[in-house]
């Protein structure tokens, strides 16, 4: 890496941080309980919009993992999301009425909150439909992982997005508030992922899975990126560049080994494909607030009309993290 590239990336990082700083004015605090945050607490950051139905399970899942405090940005919900979150004892909540798209899909807002409140903490940045799975997650709490990462001098932890879907039409089984979404969407694609290295940021670019197979078979380069780095020991100088797909400084993106070995990694189970998708799709198409002209949501609309079933006979039924590790979707690395 030449001096020029280093300098260019440094400027880019400063620009994203400055942008986050400017966008702070779009955030109005609703409830702040940040005084309850202790130095060793594990924090979670998320942007939500009309996710009331998902939140009870989401909060329970991450509380059980050991998250101590939640930071939410509510993007102008009208379904009671804000009121629900404001009542939670371990939640600090901000409201943003401005454009989601112009805040780079919430990244600017979260970068600001991370800069202010994440410094020195292990921070988790996920969407409300993403559920973190890591090696030994059934027997060891998240703190065991972060303690081990600290002891190993590792600052960022990778978790690939794994699209989960039900067998049969997506809208066939209604999702109840508080329900585990993977009781419905418990299938996934195990071995059809493509990866390439992004030379400028050093991250891997992973695509594939059910979304690519069903919705983007004719247009694979537009299939959504699945590489994510949701767990970072945050420093105020860091910045997420594009969703949680990549960060700066770019050393944080080197979550993979290049010399044949395997680093430890996890998965984000993606509970997008449940019956709430249809309403979400209609709403997002109306708002036009998503990436690249919401082409993703348009593809869903067309795709779901044509073939509402993502399941195929080679789909794998989700059992546990050990299954994902055997299939090669995640790894224990040298954590034993």
């Amino acid at each position, binding site marked *: 890496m030449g001096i020029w590239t280093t300098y260019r990336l440094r400027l880019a990082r400063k620009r994203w941080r400055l942008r986050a700083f400017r966008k702070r004015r779009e955030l109005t605090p609703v409830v702040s309980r940040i005084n309850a945050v202790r130095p060793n607490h594990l924090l979670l950051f998320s942007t939500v919009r009309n996710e009331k139905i998902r939140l009870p399970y989401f909060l329970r899942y991450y509380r059980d993992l050991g998250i101590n405090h939640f930071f939410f940005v509510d993007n102008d919900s009208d379904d009671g999301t804000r009121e629900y979150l404001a009542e939670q004892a371990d939640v600090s909540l901000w409201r943003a009425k401005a454009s989601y798209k112009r805040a780079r899909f919430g990244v600017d807002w979260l970068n600001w909150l991370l800069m202010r409140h994440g410094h020195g903490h292990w921070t988790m940045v996920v969407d409300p439909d993403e559920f973190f799975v890591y090696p030994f997650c059934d027997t060891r709490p998240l703190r065991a992982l972060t303690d081990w990462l600290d002891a190993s001098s590792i600052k960022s932890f990778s978790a690939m997005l794994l699209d989960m879907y039900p067998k049969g039409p997506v809208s066939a089984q209604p999702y109840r508030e508080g329900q585990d979404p993977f009781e419905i969407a418990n299938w996934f694609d195990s071995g059809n992922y493509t990866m390439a290295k992004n030379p400028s940021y050093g991250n891997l670019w992973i695509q594939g899975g059910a979304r690519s197979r069903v919705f983007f078979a004719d247009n694979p380069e537009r299939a959504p990126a699945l590489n994510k780095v949701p767990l970072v020991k945050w420093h105020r100088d860091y910045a997420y560049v594009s969703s949680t797909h990549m960060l700066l400084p770019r050393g944080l993106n080197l979550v993979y080994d290049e010399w*044949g070995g*395997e680093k430890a990694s996890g998965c984000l189970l993606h509970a997008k494909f449940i019956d709430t998708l249809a309403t979400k799709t209609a709403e997002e198409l109306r708002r036009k607030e998503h990436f690249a002209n919401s082409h993703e949501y348009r593809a869903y609309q067309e795709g779901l009309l044509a073939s509402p079933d993502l399941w195929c006979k080679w789909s794998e039924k989700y059992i546990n993290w050990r299954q994902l590790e055997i299939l090669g979707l995640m790894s224990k690395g040298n954590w034993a």
Partner: protein
Amino acid sequence: MSVGFVMLCHTALDRAAQVARHWAEHGCPVVIHVDRRVGKGPFRRMQRVLEGVADIRFSERFACEWGTWGLVAATQAASTLMLRDFPAVRHVYLASGSCLPLRPVKELVAYLDSRPRTDFIESVTTEDVGWTVGGLNIERFTLRFPFSWRKQRRLFDGYVRLQRRLGFRRRIPAGLVPHLGSQWWCLTRQTLSAILESPDRAAHDAYFKRVWIPDESYFQTLVRQVSANVESRSLTLSKFDFQGKPHIFYDDHLQLLRKSDCFVARKIWPHADKLYRVFLSDDAGNQPAAEPNPGKIDRLFSKAVERRTKGRAGLYMQSRFPQWNWENGMTAAPYSVFEGFSELFENFDIWLGKVTGTRVHGHLFAPDRVAFAGGEKVYNGALSDSAKLRDYNPRSFLVSLIWNTRGERQCLQFGPDDNQEIGAFFARDPNAQISVISGAWAVPLFRANVNFGEIRKEAARLQKIEAAHLAELRDPSVKAKVRIWTLAEFVENPMEPLQTIIDEISPRSNRRLTEAPRMADLTGFGQFLQNLRNQGMQPVLMGDFPAGDDPRPTTTRRGRPYLVK
């Protein structure tokens, strides 16, 4: 009261206190050293917690930075206190604050009682040590290390390089033979007091103060001077990973730890509530007295290190993306590529599947769609048959297919009409067995019902592509097992090459081929090639087919397939 514990504590003092109380209440005196860098508050709290427990002492505090003299000084002070205050102690056991006893104290006492003169300390000469990280063995004793390895790594490394270049060497005091070993030992009163009260102690201390990581060498070296009965192993189960940091034990290691029969284990995760609860309760154990046997745990951790350094062959994923030539197995398993066979033989895939019992695909890289075996639309691992998805990253497609079908050999057809991007990949892959009948693409053209002008054009195109591909396969850097025949050669004697290939695919079957695949009718093929020549296109890859001299009589088309002797 035959064994006393010296505990060196840095963090998680509440857990250390719990363990100290356990030992003290079971009749073993404990001397606790708390790192001086620990604040006053936590230290006082620990003292308060242990107030009133008999036979617990706190020793003078030293700052214990990793790899520095402080750890030895702390051990010396605490051991001296132990020997002075508890005259009944015969063995002194050095433990850390993150140690946990795995067997009842009385079993350890009985074990030591039956070996009253033995010093348990891992002590290995520098030549025989294989585990030092950073490549410093004997140099630990002969160079100077004024800089912190943790905080001033560049200075540390630079200064070591400088000393090497200048040929600087410290003199090792006469009579000392450097030994290294685990920091955690269990020494007898006689040995320990001989080291601590040695007339040369001042000289030894002065020397070891500047040795790199003295806690792994001070006692390990000096014990050789004074003890006649060194058992060179540690009673503490402690495993290190490839970076030299200790592996950590969690609740889910409970059964492994139980079965290890070791007396003490480190390092325990401070929040492993179940481990602390189980092993510190009185009813733990009651197994027959067994020798420590950490074999299973060894295997678990060495597998973890192997996974981190070598990984699983042929796997490309979010946390394993090897650079060119560092793949350690470009694909997960051997596979076979057939070029020209399905053109020359009718129903070649069915025949091959029957003979070898493998999965035989069609042209996986065909331009219109992926021809999976059996015409499947989706295959193992939910691979799609969309040509666009495949061509988006042909390499990912192939390695995924081989990874998804581990345990079942894959065979695939390939030809000049297919996506050529993958050709260079399997040429370089030692797992690939590539068999080529060059020029066989002309057979379908020969039998096609198309205007000759178009055939000529197509033949020229395919020949050019295949020539480039063959050049790739003949490159000296090729690692695949490549065999190339011209069409003429192959048609002359098809059974022998087929037998060779099939023997290689299933070496154990070891049987002669009795049934050959049915070859396409080549009557007039020589004339067809001549026609191409007459039109100004030079077919070269199929070898020598004289015009009018047909290679095979048409009888193979009818009757039963011929038999080979």
